[in-house]
């Protein structure tokens, strides 16, 4: 099927994503009206106004940065068939590592400290992902539950540190002392909060795309996610593949935590993550589990986040509407994906779970390899 025909078919991914957005806005018009505002004005505030000024447009990218990390992390794991719902906790552990290194790194050159922080964030995130992964691979214990349960534990760990050994002696608030100057991620542009973390995120997403689409390990990972039995039969070590995917996923989320600490907060705080790990799931799904899709979805949700707080100020709508829209968007996306699979499936395909045309067709025309259906059971 030619590229243009694929894009124009009523069920192609770009059309579907657009449809999901439209339906979501229709559904959330109600709460907006209840909040006493005009839905059209609200959506304008949400989507368009962030793009109107240089500062806010760059803020969109700032907001997209952490969810680029978690979206990528979740997408990699889900593609392997590993349901990593613990990106939230993995991100927090990465933040802890970064804050720790950042406080102690005085006197070292930045060229050493920054890679050290990245490595520390990755190791911490991967470490937090290790136990559920091992339990899954060795004992077949459902990783959904174990990764989920470690999220509140990670938060407790952070709060414990902030109320205890890392309580800022200067301010007395439950936030850590500031990291040293060399540990800060440099700003990319002046008069903006956009920092190096954004480029690190893009680099990671690009790396992930390449690895998944072009390397043997990536193909094995995709095969494992699409058909664990078929992969095992072909001699692929499914356990090792899952473990690898889980650790890589945790590492990426951990680097995301480091990025927030070293690029925005410059310290560890209790409110560091307003659910980045969970939003990462929305990003991964909306992006069709493809890396180009993750980029587009992360920027879109970043736009929503910035828009939500400005809509809050401008129209008096609580910024929590952003979370409502996110949740609704995820549900509508997932529902439409399921509807599409139902409509288009032929019997043999229905058995295999149908397929998704990735947004890759739009963004990176090289990746027309098969993508797994994020709708396929588990």
């Amino acid at each position, binding site marked *: 099927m030619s590229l243009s025909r694929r894009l124009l078919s009523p069920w192609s991914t770009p059309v579907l994503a657009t449809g999901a957005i439209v339906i979501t806005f229709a559904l959330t018009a109600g709460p907006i009206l209840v909040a006493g505002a005009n839905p059209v004005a609200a959506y304008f505030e949400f989507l368009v106004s962030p793009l109107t000024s240089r500062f806010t447009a760059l803020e969109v990218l700032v907001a997209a940065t952490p969810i680029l990390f978690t979206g990528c992390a979740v997408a990699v794991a889900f593609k392997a068939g590993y349901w990593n719902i613990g990106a939230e906790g993995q991100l927090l552990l990465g933040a802890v590592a970064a804050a720790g290194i950042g406080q102690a790194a005085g006197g070292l050159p930045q060229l050493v400290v920054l890679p050290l922080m990245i490595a520390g964030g990755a190791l911490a995130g991967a470490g937090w992902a290790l136990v559920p992964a091992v339990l899954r691979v060795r004992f077949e214990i459902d990783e959904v539950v174990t990764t989920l349960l470690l999220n509140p534990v990670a938060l407790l760990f952070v709060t414990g540190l902030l109320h205890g050994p890392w309580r800022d002696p200067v301010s007395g608030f439950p936030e850590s002392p500031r990291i040293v100057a060399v540990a800060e991620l440099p700003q990319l542009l002046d008069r903006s909060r956009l920092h190096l973390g954004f480029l690190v995120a893009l680099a990671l997403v690009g790396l992930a795309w390449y690895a998944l689409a072009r390397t043997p390990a990536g193909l094995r990972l995709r*095969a494992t996610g699409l058909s664990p039995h078929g992969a095992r039969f072909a001699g692929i070590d499914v356990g090792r593949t899952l473990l690898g995917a889980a650790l890589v996923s945790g590492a990426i989320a951990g680097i995301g935590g480091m990025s927030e600490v070293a690029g925005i907060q410059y310290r560890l705080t209790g409110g560091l993550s307003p659910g980045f790990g969970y939003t990462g799931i929305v990003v991964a799904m909306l992006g069709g589990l493809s890396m180009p899709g993750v980029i587009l979805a992360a920027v879109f949700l970043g736009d929503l986040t910035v828009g939500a707080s400005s809509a809050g100020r401008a129209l008096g709508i609580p910024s929590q509407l952003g979370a409502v829209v996110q949740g609704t968007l995820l549900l509508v996306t997932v529902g439409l994906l399921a509807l599409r699979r139902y409509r288009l499936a*032929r019997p043999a395909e229905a058995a295999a779970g149908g397929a998704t045309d990735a947004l890759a067709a739009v963004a990176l025309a090289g990746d027309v390899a098969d993508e797994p259906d994020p709708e396929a059971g588990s």
Partner: protein
Amino acid sequence: MAGQAPGHEVNGPPALELRGVTKRFGDLLANDGVDFDVRRGEVHALLGENGAGKTTLMRIVYGLSGPDAGEIRVAGRPVAIHSPRDAIAAGIGMVTQHFALVRPMTVAENLVLGRVPGLRLHPAEARRRALEASERFGIGAAPDAVVGRLSVGQQQRVEILKALARDCRILILDEPTAVLVPHEVAALFETLRHLVAEGLSVVFITHKLGEVRAISDRVSVLRRGRLVGTVAGTTPEPELARMMVGRPTFGVMREGAARARGGESVLRIDRLRVETSAGRPLVRDVTLEVGAGEIVGVAGVSGNGQTELVEVLSGMRRPAAGSVRVGDVELAGRRPAAVMAAGVGRIPEDRHASLVGELSVAYNLVLERLDDFRRGGALDEGRIRAEAEALIARFSIRARPGDRVATLSGGNVQKVLLARVLSREPRVLVVSQPTRGLDVGATEYVRRELLARRAAGTAILLVSEDLDEILALSDRVVVMYEGEIVGEMAAPEADLERLGLLMAGRGRAA
């Protein structure tokens, strides 16, 4: 011998009538304007090869599938059937090939499923009803037995009882003898004659000519979704066969003499034991050898340990004890990568699960040896494509390298598997149900390939439910029953009756 049931009436409207029933699955026309009727008190066989559309047609009648066109009439009146509930209400019962029984539940619970009005469920009451139904229809079934633990023949009886207990007037049986041994088949036919004498109508789906003539009053033959014709059950077999396939077939057969045991043993299985996680034995102390250039056929009704045996040989399951050697490499309990490295090629019975349907033909073909197709750290797409094209040509696969395997027909999927396996020139082939569900052309292709491998010196272990296939291809035949090898003989000495007895657990060889 044809079954002529007394009380077989021609007066009055047919018990069941289909007019112009059509069903499409995407491009595939599974049923094409089928007209079909069943009289009261009649056993009507629905005959056709695999894929002719018989099961699809009856699933429509039972509400498990919806027709794209056509009408169904019961006792002369049109009925709308949108679900099994509607079908049951219309007096239609069906025993599917994969029984619709909930395995962890008891017989009584399964019988009562969907039938008890109101909220309360009394276990004692359910048990009583089960016993009652059992006596009324003369079909024995213990109410408290857990269905999952019953033998296949017993499960089938429970299924039939379930249908009858709902006062069905039309009973559809889909390939009921596929899972039965000869004496169970005789018992089933006896039951059917008894039921039909009381006015029940039976539709009997089968692909076996012998059964058709043994039990049916009339036969309707389907071929590629179309009704070829409806004839008397006494019609001679060659004519029925011709209606089924459109030409007389003799099938692919082993040429020349069966190889006598004497060649060097390549595959040695020694006292292999496989158990469930609860310790229940599935394969008991199986000892078997296969020599180079020899085909050893494993006959037996499905469910007697063959699947587990093949799983161990494929590296997909760990045995509890025993050894599997290829040459001097021990493979028991090793993973697929090691098994393949030792020169074992595997053609499994579940084709779709053993490939990655969502990946392309090309990727599937090279999936076992990705490291051979690297360029630096990345995949060498050019070489992968070239290899795929070569294999597609060599094995006549009707597909392009970029097509998703999930879109291929059954025959082509099997060819992909064959290509993947045979391109590595294995010393040993472990093959399970290689032609199940394939059309005649694909079946012949596969069998010819296996014989070619045999001529080239590969040791082949062939597991098949199709006794004709076993007899046509094997040099030696062994029979498995309840996890053990109960008989072994050279192919010329093997005949259906002897094999049938062994498969049923009787006439054990010394």
